[in-house]
């Protein structure tokens, strides 16, 4: 089969699964709308939390409320998009227990791709809306020196943030092969990382900086690019231009995720012992 045709065929498989998932959710209109609103409310509550915090303190780590809206918006949008695409990796323990994973082995698609496309939670679009709104408002409120460079930085940051968060989901899935009931542990860096990404990393203690700036590099998803965008100094001793290194952080996150996934899969198949 010619390569383009083969690729079209591959997409057809994922599209068929996803379309059926979308249809089945859309067919329950009332419950779908409630899910959508619910997801949006969760996002709004998290936003309110930040608003309350900043209206009490004025600023944290050198960031005002308007500035942190950019950080919140960028990271929340990136996370929600990643959640939409890769969030189903969270289901892995369920799939392992139900034997669904074994069924994935019997289909001619890569396992990880099957896992990611096994379902689609359209309600997560609700979350994306909150993030996108906050980002837009943040961009309007702040005094940004618009240029090709700033637009490029924003696009780069959003894409990198998306990849970083998606990689966290895959990392968590890889580890879940070992820790069938270990979702509490992986949630700490997947959802903890999401929360951390909405904060000014400048105020973090060193240990937290190592975890969420290095190992799970969520600081690169929003905080550092926004600091670069606004020309603010990064955490102690770190240069302002560090935000441009978001894609490097994304590559690192992907490498860790790839390693964890392969390692987990080897364990499942029993080659790793």
């Amino acid at each position: 089969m010619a390569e383009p045709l083969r690729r079209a065929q591959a997409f057809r498989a994922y599209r068929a699964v996803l379309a059926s998932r979308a249809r089945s959710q859309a067919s329950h209109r009332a419950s779908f709308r409630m899910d959508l609103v619910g997801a949006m409310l969760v996002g709004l509550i998290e936003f309110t939390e930040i608003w309350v915090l900043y209206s009490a303190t004025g600023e944290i780590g050198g960031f005002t409320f308007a500035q942190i809206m950019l950080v919140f918006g960028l990271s929340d949008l990136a996370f929600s998009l990643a959640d939409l695409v890769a969030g189903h990796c969270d289901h892995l323990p369920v799939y392992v227990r139900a034997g669904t994973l074994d069924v994935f082995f019997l289909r001619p698609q890569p396992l990880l791709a099957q896992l990611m496309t096994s379902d689609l939670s359209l309600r997560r679009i609700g979350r994306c809306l909150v993030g996108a709104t906050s980002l837009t408002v943040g961009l309007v409120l702040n005094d940004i020196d618009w240029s090709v460079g700033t637009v490029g930085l924003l696009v780069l940051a959003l894409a990198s943030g998306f990849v970083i968060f998606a990689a966290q989901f895959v990392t968590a899935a890889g580890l879940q092969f070992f820790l069938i009931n270990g979702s509490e542990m992986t949630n700490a860096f997947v959802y903890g990382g999401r929360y951390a990404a909405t904060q000014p990393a400048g105020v973090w203690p060193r240990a937290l900086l190592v975890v969420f700036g290095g190992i799970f590099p969520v600081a690169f998803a929003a905080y550092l690019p926004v600091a670069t965008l606004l020309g603010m100094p990064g955490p102690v001793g770190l240069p302002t231009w560090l935000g441009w290194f978001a894609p490097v952080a994304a590559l690192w996150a992907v490498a860790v995720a790839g390693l964890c996934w392969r390692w987990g899969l080897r364990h499942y198949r029993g080659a790793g012992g």
Partner: protein
Amino acid sequence: MNIIETDGLTRVFTGRPDRKNRLRRSRHVAVDCLDLTVEAGEAVGYIGANGAGKSTTIKMLVGILVPTSGTVTTAGLHPLKQRRALARRIGVVFGQRSQLWWDLPVRESFSILSAIHSLSAADERTRTAELVDMLEMGEFLSTPVRQLSLGQRMRAEVAAALLHRPELLILDEPTIGLDVLSKQRLREFLVAQRREHGTTLLLTTHDMGDVERLCDRILVVDHGKLAFDGTLGGLARTVGARRELVVDLATPTSDLVDLDGAEHVRSESGGLRQRLAFDPQRTTAARVLAAVSERAEVLDLSITEPDIEDVVREIYRATRH
């Protein structure tokens, strides 16, 4: 051509390290140096007690599990390195895990699977129509899978595994929990499928009826080792697998001994119910019944299959000495 070939296939499961002695781990040899060849077109029954290593073998054949040692080739492919290519050439039904989408109509599951296996639209239509017709699925094609009866679901599972016309169909406990009629239908379909497409069958089962009606070769596995490899006739000769005809008679009758081809096992209720054993290789239930009818009026009857557990136990007993 051999569609399945294993050479010294072994799988050991290691448990957690011992608390006292960290170097000692519990070891369980699930499959032990298994040499197996199945030719294309054969129908093979793979039987054994629970935990004998059947499922582990199948998981290694299809590329889910990695062998601890030994080699395995399925449809000429390496199941681990060429899993995706292999997936296009085999169909697998795991009795306990579903290929179908729980909340979708059966029809939609088929169309998703057609996309997964890259069937053309025309191919999808003809193949689906053929399977729907042969497995009599028309009446529940629009029903969500979760609302199907077990028999209906199993038919849909088998159809799902055959949609892409695999050369090898592996069935793990396909008739478990099915009623007599559903079992019968499924078996007839599988026989026809094999006749028309030359599909190789490998099935594990606890049902002697499956083995008798579907398989021309039987493999018995015990503690991961092959304990028997031969025909049903050979198996029957080894363990004397006989069926029992149970007849309820109109009047108390003396023991029905010296019947042609059947042996009196025992009488109950003063001769109102009698049990007769016969070898299905040499006579039929109908002939035994005819012979009984000459001597007494039969009110009711039932046939009990030899329990596969008994057959397996006999084999184990015979081979362990």
